[in-house]
């Protein structure tokens, strides 16, 4: 059924169609509309046999989900930004225990400085925690990925994080095709947990494991993620047949067939990149884009194949490995057969800064001209940075950095 709804509501509807049994959440922007939508459905009876728990923190949210999943229930939660970091210990715990919890992360920057706007720092901080991480390009894909996430997680007994850009997707009203309950029921079998509370064999979950088996338990988690790489493409095909659209999978290439320059990105910025590329194609530039849907597990072979003919790669990423450069870029370099120097990291859109077609076009032109640095920051205000550095050179007590920069800009700090 076609509907014009907010991204958060699309996700709430998709999650409800998956018949979760326990939902637990703590309010944090820009995720809150999702769980508010689910709260209303639980109360109205539209979402039957589901318990909704208002918790006291994100740490509690993930811990409640762990308890529910350990008892064999289909559990869901959603968070963003600081909330994801606050629950980090439990996030690792969930994957270590092999519990197929599904969580939406409405991607948002991490403070300090305090910032509520979109980038990928939150999800990237948890990239190696053992969860599968899927990134949605638009609201339709966000909706579809949630349905796929439950099946994927439950098949492999691994938790799945569905990442969608905060505000850009969560708060955008877009047309989405909402599947019927029958369609979802046919695609997503009831949860058959590997761990259940069995009176015939009571077991205490959460064993202490020493050096004799710890590495093997962790290896198995890795092996399961490698198995996910094998399963996901087939499931994307199956999803296409069942629902009539192309959603999910490991990655999506756009106009890369003859491209010698390939741009790599995750999430909603892919739309802007595609528009920019369409313009450049009209001028005869051989450029295309590779969108990564599945970031963990990292589809090493698929990315390598997708980049096989590219002579240069530009990674546009909304995260920064401070002290290194690009996080996505580092992953891309492991997949690129050519010289690592041909892979450029462009850090963009941190803290919600707009990524415009004009700026992207400038970056891509620089890449084609061979003048793009290995690491660059899109639309960085160099003068502002220089003023802060000058302050630090001139006086030992140069004061708090963010407040100094806001003063330089004449922006009132308290207005967030």
């Amino acid at each position, binding site marked *: 059924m076609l509907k014009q709804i907010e991204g958060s509501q699309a996700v709430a509807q998709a999650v409800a169609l998956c018949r979760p049994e326990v939902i637990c*959440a*703590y*309010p*944090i*922007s820009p995720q*809150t509309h999702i*769980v*508010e*939508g689910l*709260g*209303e459905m639980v*109360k*109205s009876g539209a979402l039957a046999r589901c318990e*909704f728990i*208002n918790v*006291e*923190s*994100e740490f509690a949210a993930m811990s409640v989900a762990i308890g529910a999943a350990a008892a064999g229930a289909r559990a869901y939660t959603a968070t963003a930004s*600081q909330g994801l970091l*606050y629950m980090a210990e439990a996030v690792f715990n969930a994957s270590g225990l092999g519990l197929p919890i599904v969580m939406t992360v409405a991607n948002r920057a991490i*403070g300090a400085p*305090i910032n509520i706007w979109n980038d990928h720092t939150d999800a990237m901080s948890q990239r190696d925690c053992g969860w599968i991480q899927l990134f949605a390009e638009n609201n339709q894909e966000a909706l579809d990925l949630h349905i796929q996430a439950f099946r994927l997680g439950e098949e492999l007994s691994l938790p799945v994080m569905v990442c969608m850009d905060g505000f850009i997707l969560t708060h955008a009203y877009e047309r989405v095709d909402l599947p019927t309950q029958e369609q979802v029921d046919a695609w997503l079998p009831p949860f058959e947990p590997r761990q259940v509370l069995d009176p015939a064999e009571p077991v205490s979950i959460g064993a202490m494991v020493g050096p004799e088996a710890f590495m093997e338990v962790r290896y198995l988690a890795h092996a399961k993620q490698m198995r996910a790489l094998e399963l996901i493409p087939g499931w994307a095909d199956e999803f296409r047949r069942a629902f009539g659209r192309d959603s999910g999978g490991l990655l999506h290439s756009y106009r890369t067939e003859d491209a010698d320059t390939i741009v790599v990105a995750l999430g909603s910025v892919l739309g802007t990149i595609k528009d920019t590329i369409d313009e450049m194609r009209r001028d005869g530039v051989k450029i295309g884009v590779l969108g990564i849907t599945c970031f963990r597990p990292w589809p090493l072979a698929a990315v390598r194949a997708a980049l096989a003919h590219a002579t240069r790669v530009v990674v546009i990423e909304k995260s920064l490995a401070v002290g290194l450069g690009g996080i996505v870029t580092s992953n891309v370099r492991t997949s690129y057969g050519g010289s690592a120097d041909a892979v450029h990291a462009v850090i963009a859109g941190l803290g919600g800064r707009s990524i415009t077609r004009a700026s992207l076009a400038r970056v891509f032109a620089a890449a084609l001209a061979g003048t793009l640095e290995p690491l660059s920051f899109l639309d960085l205000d160099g003068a502002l940075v220089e003023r802060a550095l000058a302050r630090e050179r001139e006086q030992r007590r140069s004061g708090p950095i963010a407040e100094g920069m806001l003063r330089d800009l004449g922006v*009132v*700090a*308290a*207005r*967030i």
Partner: protein
Amino acid sequence: MGQRVNAPGAPMLAPKDFKSDYKPVWCPGCGDYSVLSAITKALAMLALKPENVAVVSGIGCSSRIPAYTTCYGFHGVHGRALPVATGLKAARPDLTVLVASGDGDGYSIGGNHFLHACRRNLDLTYIVMDNHVYGMTKGQPSPTTEPDWSSKLAPGGTGLREFHPLVIALASGANFIARAYSGDPNGCAALIAEAVRHPGFSFVEVLSPCVTFRPEQREWKTMVHPAPVAATDDPGRAARRLMTDDGFNVGVLYKGKRPAYARANGGNQTVEALACQFRA
């Protein structure tokens, strides 16, 4: 401890001297405007200077307060105001440290720190603006929300009994417990000033209406009333009073005698003082 006086002859500062140029972004009618006024009045009454005072907060509408004062301010992460203030006070015991929070920040995500700050009894003044709702995220139930208050997140209400912060504070060892109402900024200022003067951990719960998501809280002005009896220093008696009060008793409700946390170096701990802690 707690009370400080300016150098003789120094001009007294007015409340406005403690207000910064930043225009608050709170909704029109928010109770927190009056709490800001009350804090600045209290600081003027105490003859403090902005540089004698630090205001520490977490996340939420109430936590914007530090930037609206001319004092030192620290706007931290959600729920962590009390431990940040503890570190600040440990490093600079000469400063008067106010900690600003709300019912979401202070009682749920930061609830554990509340217990231990009361226990530790460092000389801090903890001002919690309680409006029984998460305002910044636009209207979700908090720990002090009534069980039947309906919201999108919990239609028909959470069904959970309210958290009772004053009883928790007493049980955890807070040395001063008061309830204030933002609609009476002068009364609120007097209570905050008294809390600052009292040694150890002082807790002021301020009923501060959220007119946007809880418009019915405008009625609080008809419901608040002065506490019928004077503050007690007997925790047992205070417990009975706090457990049975109607939530709208305004005034100092408990004034304990526990000595404030003493620094390892230069502390003035005596055998009598230690014994007093065990009696309290």
